């Protein structure tokens, strides 16, 4: 039956050719490692976020008067509503975490270097977009946490000279966070950003296909692949391992490990994405004590607190982000092995430690 369907399709659109080219005939470097499978994990997470998001939309009402109630209804009344919502909330946290790991592996293996600058830039844009979709989704339940986190986040734009105050009002759709804010944030969260993210994922994968997988700088031959070509050149890996079935198995085991962690959080630590303020409906007249952003924004939050002027704090962050985004254009040496790039390695480790320290500080203060 399946064979006949395959035959039928193959006669019409040449499925066999695609399978041959992309799956079985597609060779990966022999020394490819686990870290390369994080991209597949991220694709699965994104798909899961889209599916659970669509399911949530069935019962969620994006209206300031009804949003909190509808979320409570999903959590308490709808069969398995808690599961769908927890998967969505935990999934968003895990997406940021895996994204960071994916970027770290790219950094350490130097895969952002020429000719893969565009891959890094699209990937970096994806990080910013994911942060954006997390922030806009945060407002959706219209809880105290949502309300005040959004108030603080949108407020930071006011530090920008001249245009700042107007920009804040524009973001919020009013002087304060209120029903108009929910409307625009919901549209961004559920319609605009998913499409933009999907488009960037498409571009990211397209670029990956065009340049070919980079060989890890570890182990065997072919570690350094200096880029001096005057012409477009696809990096093939003769003598490598086929994507299917060899690397698919690695992808699947990474995805399984991911699911084990993900479901463990969903079932055994359901409070992870929430603080007590997440269970109180938004009240514009009462700011709860110690309002804090999500863990991945804690470092940014702390930076804003350290610097005496908000503008300075924002500029430092913007500078750090721009530096990271343009990294492949700044770091031009062809060497990719992390141990042979001591300055770079020190900087990366120092950067990570700084980020962790700022986050912990932000969490404790």
């Amino acid at each position: 039956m399946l064979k006949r369907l395959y035959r039928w399709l193959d006669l019409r659109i040449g499925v066999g050719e695609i399978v041959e080219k992309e799956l079985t005939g597609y060779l990966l470097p022999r020394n490819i490692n686990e870290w390369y499978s994080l991209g597949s994990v991220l694709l699965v997470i994104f798909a899961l976020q889209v599916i659970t998001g669509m399911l949530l939309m069935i019962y969620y009402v994006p209206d300031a008067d009804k949003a909190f109630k509808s979320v409570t209804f999903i959590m308490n009344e709808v069969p398995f509503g808690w599961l769908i919502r927890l998967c969505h909330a935990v999934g968003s946290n895990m997406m940021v975490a895996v994204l960071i790991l994916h970027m770290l592996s790219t950094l350490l293996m130097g895969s952002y270097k020429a000719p893969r600058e565009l891959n890094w830039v699209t990937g970096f844009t994806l990080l910013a977009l994911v942060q954006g979709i997390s922030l806009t989704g945060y407002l959706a339940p219209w809880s105290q946490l949502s309300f005040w986190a959004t108030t603080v986040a949108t407020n930071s734009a006011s530090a920008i000279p001249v245009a700042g105050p107007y920009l804040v009002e524009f973001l919020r759709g009013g002087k304060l966070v209120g029903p108009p804010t929910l409307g625009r944030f919901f549209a961004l969260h559920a319609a605009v950003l998913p499409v933009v993210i999907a488009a960037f994922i498409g571009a990211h994968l397209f670029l990956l296909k065009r340049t070919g997988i980079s060989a890890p700088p570890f182990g065997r031959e072919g570690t350094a692949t200096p880029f001096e070509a005057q012409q477009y050149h696809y990096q093939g890996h003769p003598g490598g391992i086929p994507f299917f079935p060899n690397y698919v198995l690695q992808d699947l085991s990474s995805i399984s490990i991911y699911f084990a962690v993900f479901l463990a959080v969903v079932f055994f630590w359901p409070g992870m994405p929430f603080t007590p303020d997440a269970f109180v409906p938004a009240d514009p007249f009462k700011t709860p004590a110690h309002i804090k952003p999500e863990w991945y924004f804690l470092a940014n939050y702390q930076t804003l607190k350290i610097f005496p002027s908000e503008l300075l704090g924002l500029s430092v962050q913007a500078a750090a982000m721009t530096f990271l985004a343009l990294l492949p254009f700044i770091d031009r040496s062809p060497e990719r092995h992390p141990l042979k790039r001591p300055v770079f390695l020190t900087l990366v480790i120092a950067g990570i430690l700084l980020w962790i320290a700022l986050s912990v500080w932000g969490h404790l203060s």
Partner: protein
Amino acid sequence: MENEGRRKFLGVCVAGATAAAAVAAGYPVFRYLAPRTGQGGAAKLVIPAGELKEGDAKFFEFAGSSAVLIKTKTGELVALSAVCTHLGCIVQWVKEKQQFLCPCHGGQFSTDGSVLGGPPPRPLAKIPLTVTEGNITIG
């Protein structure tokens, strides 16, 4: 040969585990989407008899659907399903003619629900009612 058997066994295990995972993920989604039970409305409804004048009709929700109660010119009380038996529109009460008219395709029904004209194939369903001390209990 032995290898072949091993491969087959592992294949069956993988297929089984995949199927189990699919059910484990599919069941919650199915239950999440399934219509909410116990929202059909009350199975019994009490209406004070004084609410209805002779020749009038009162529409209400009954057991999750639309129903109508009329008091004929002769003072008789009738409760009917208001759902047209043709394609499911809600019939209207035409007071002057003392009959029901379906706005969708012009079906006509008499006060006891029988078809007077138009495409409806069956009379409107009757709903039993009892009158006790000025209260009309429907259902």
